[in-house]
C-alpha cells in the first residue's frame, strides 16, 4: 500500500510516513510494520480534544460514515516532536483511487462526504476538506478515512471545502453522467479535482438548465475566474459571516440533490463479455465455474485479484469460499453493474474497480508516490485471469512472455484460462485482421508461463476447446 519513497524528514526506524499523507498540518498517516497509525499534531491539539470530547466521532462511526479507530500510545509516534495524540484507524482492505471507481462508487463517495458534513453541522462542526482521497471502500461501502477532517464551525462562516467538493466530486460526476462515463479517467490527470472552467466547457449546454449544475459548476466556474486575483474580496466575503445555519443546510441539500439527480446507465457493453463466457454453451460454462472453484480452493491464500472480472461471476465464486477479492475490469459499465449488485446483496468481501491492464494506474501525485501504482498495491495471493489472455495477447498485441511477467509481479499464485484460436471468441477477434499470431498456441502458452511459473494443474473445459491452468510462481 505504501510506496517506499525516501523520507524527507528524520524518522524513527522501521516506520514510514505514507507518501500520500503530508499536506494537512493537523496530522498524518504512517505505517510501522503492518500497522497503520494516524498521528495528531500539537498544532491541532485543542481541536482534537474538542472533537473527541464532543462525541461527534462516535456518532459518525456508529452511522458507518467515518472509519473506526482506537487510541494508540503517544510513545509510538513517528514524529514525537510534533505529536499530541495517536490513533490506530481500522486497516483498509485495499486502497483504491477515485480514477479507478465506477460512476456509482464516486457518487456514493460524494454522498457519504455530504452526509458527514450534515451530521457534523448538526453537532456544531464542519468538514475542513472534501477531497475524494478522504474516502475509501471498506467492506464494499464508502467510508471517510480522515478522522482529523473536522473542526468547530464558526457561526456564519462559509464552507471552506465547497470548492474542493465541486472539483473532486460534482464536476467528474456531471461529466460522467452528462458527457461520457470515460471522463472519470480525467481524475488520473487532475489529481486535485477537475477544474470547474474545464468542466463547464466540456459539459453539454443543456446542463445549464439544471439548477444545481448551473449554480455549482457553471456559475461557480465564472465566479472563480472573476475573483481569481481578488483574494481580498474573498476574505471580505468570509468576514461578513453571511452563511447562516439555514443557508449552510440549504447549500449542502442542494449539492446532495444535484448529485442524486445525476444518473448513468450503461449502453450494454458489459453483455459482450457474458457472451465471451457462454459462447460455448451453458454446460461448459458450469464446468468452468466448478473448475475455477476447485482451483481457487486448491490455491489457498486469502486475497484474490480477479483480472477482467466483468460483472463478477468468478469473483463471487472466490468470495463464496471465503476469499477477499479485488475485481478489476476495463469496462466501467461492467464494474458499475458489479458494484450495484454488491451493494444490493450486502457483499463485504469484493471490491470492483475499473482498470485497463495494458495501461494500469501509475504512481501519481508528488514524486509519483502520493498515489500508489497498481504494482505498489499488489498484495494478492492468487491472480484469477479467466477469459482475459486472448484479449491482451491478440487485441492488445502483448506477447505471452510479457503477460507471464505481469502476472508474476502481482501474486505468487495464478489461475489462468487459455482460449485457443479455434474458439469462436478468438475467431471473432481475428475476423477483421491478419493473423500475426503464429505463437498463440497452448504449447507456447505453457512455455511462456513456465519461465516464471510452475504448472501445478491443468484441465480442459469440457464442451469447449478451452483449458484452465493453476500455477505457482517460481522462487
Amino acid at each position, binding site marked *: 500500500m505504501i510506496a517506499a519513497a525516501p523520507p524527507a524528514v528524520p524518522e524513527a526506524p522501521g516506520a514510514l510516513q505514507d507518501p500520500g499523507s503530508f499536506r494537512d498540518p493537523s496530522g498524518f498517516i504512517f505505517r510501522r510494520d503492518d500497522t497503520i497509525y494516524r498521528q495528531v499534531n500539537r498544532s491541532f491539539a485543542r481541536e482534537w480534544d474538542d472533537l473527541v470530547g464532543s462525541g461527534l466521532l462516535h456518532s459518525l462511526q456508529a452511522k458507518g460514515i467515518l472509519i473506526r479507530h482506537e487510541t494508540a500510545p503517544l510513545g509510538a509516534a513517528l514524529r514525537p516532536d510534533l505529536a499530541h495524540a495517536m490513533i490506530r484507524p481500522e486497516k483498509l482492505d485495499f486502497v483504491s483511487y477515485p480514477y479507478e471507481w465506477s460512476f456509482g462508487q464516486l457518487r456514493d463517495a460524494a454522498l457519504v462526504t455530504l452526509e458527514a458534513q450534515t451530521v457534523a453541522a448538526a453537532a456544531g462542526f464542519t468538514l*475542513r476538506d472534501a477531497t475524494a482521497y478522504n474516502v475509501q471502500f471498506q467492506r464494499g461501502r464508502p467510508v471517510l478515512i480522515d478522522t482529523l477532517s473536522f473542526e468547530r464551525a464558526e457561526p456564519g462562516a*462559509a464552507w*471552506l471545502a465547497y*470548492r*474542493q467538493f465541486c472539483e473532486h466530486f460534482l464536476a467528474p460526476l456531471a461529466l460522467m453522467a452528462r458527457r461520457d462515463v470515460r471522463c472519470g479517467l480525467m481524475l488520473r490527470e487532475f489529481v486535485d479535482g477537475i477544474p470547474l472552467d474545464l468542466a463547464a466547457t466540456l459539459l453539454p449546454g443543456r446542463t445549464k438548465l439544471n439548477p444545481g449544475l448551473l449554480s455549482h459548476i457553471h456559475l461557480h466556474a465564472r465566479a472563480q475566474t472573476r*475573483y481569481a486575483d481578488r483574494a481580498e474580496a*474573498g476574505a471580505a466575503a468570509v468576514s461578513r459571516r453571511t452563511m447562516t445555519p*439555514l443557508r449552510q443546510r440549504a447549500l449542502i441539500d442542494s449539492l446532495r440533490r444535484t448529485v442524486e439527480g445525476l444518473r448513468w446507465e450503461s449502453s450494454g457493453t458489459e453483455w459482450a463479455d457474458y457472451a465471451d463466457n457462454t459462447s460455448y454453451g451453458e454446460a461448459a460454462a458450469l464446468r468452468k465455474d466448478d473448475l475455477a472453484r476447485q482451483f481457487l480452493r486448491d490455491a489457498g491464500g486469502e486475497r484474490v485479484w480477479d483480472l477482467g472480472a466483468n460483472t463478477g461471476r468468478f469473483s463471487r465464486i472466490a468470495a463464496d469460499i471465503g476469499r477477499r477479492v479485488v475485481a478489476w475490469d476495463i469496462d466501467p459499465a461492467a464494474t458499475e453493474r458489479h458494484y450495484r449488485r454488491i451493494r444490493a446483496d450486502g457483499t463485504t468481501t469484493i471490491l470492483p474497480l475499473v482498470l485497463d491492464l495494458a495501461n494500469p494506474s501509475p504512481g501519481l501525485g508528488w514524486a509519483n508516490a502520493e498515489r500508489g501504482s497498481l504494482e505498489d498495491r499488489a498484495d494478492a495471493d492468487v491472480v484469477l485471469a479467466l477469459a482475459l489472455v486472448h484479449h491482451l495477447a491478440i487485441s492488445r498485441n502483448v506477447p505471452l512472455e510479457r503477460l507471464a511477467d505481469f502476472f508474476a509481479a502481482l501474486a505468487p499464485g495464478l489461475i489462468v484460462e487459455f482460449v485457443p484460436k479455434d474458439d469462436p471468441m478468438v475467431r471473432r477477434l481475428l475476423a477483421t485482421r491478419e493473423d500475426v499470431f503464429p505463437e498463440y498456441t497452448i504449447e507456447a502458452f505453457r512455455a511462456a508461463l513456465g519461465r516464471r511459473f510452475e504448472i501445478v494443474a491443468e484441465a480442459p473445459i469440457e464442451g469447449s476447446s478451452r483449458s484452465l491452468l493453476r500455477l505457482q510462481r517460481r522462487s
Partner: protein
Amino acid sequence: MLSLIAYIDPGSGSLIIQAVIATALAVPFFLREQIARLVRGLRRGKPDDRAS
C-alpha cells in the same frame, strides 16, 4: 477570521458564489423543510400509527 487550520485554498470565487447560491436557495429550502416536518408530524398523528 479564517480558520487557522484551513489548510486547503477555499478560493475567493467559491466563497462568494456559495453565499449567493445559498441565499437564493434558503427560502425554498426552508419551505421544503417545514412541509416535510409537517408531513412527518401528520403521519405520526394518525391513529393506526404505532408509537415511535
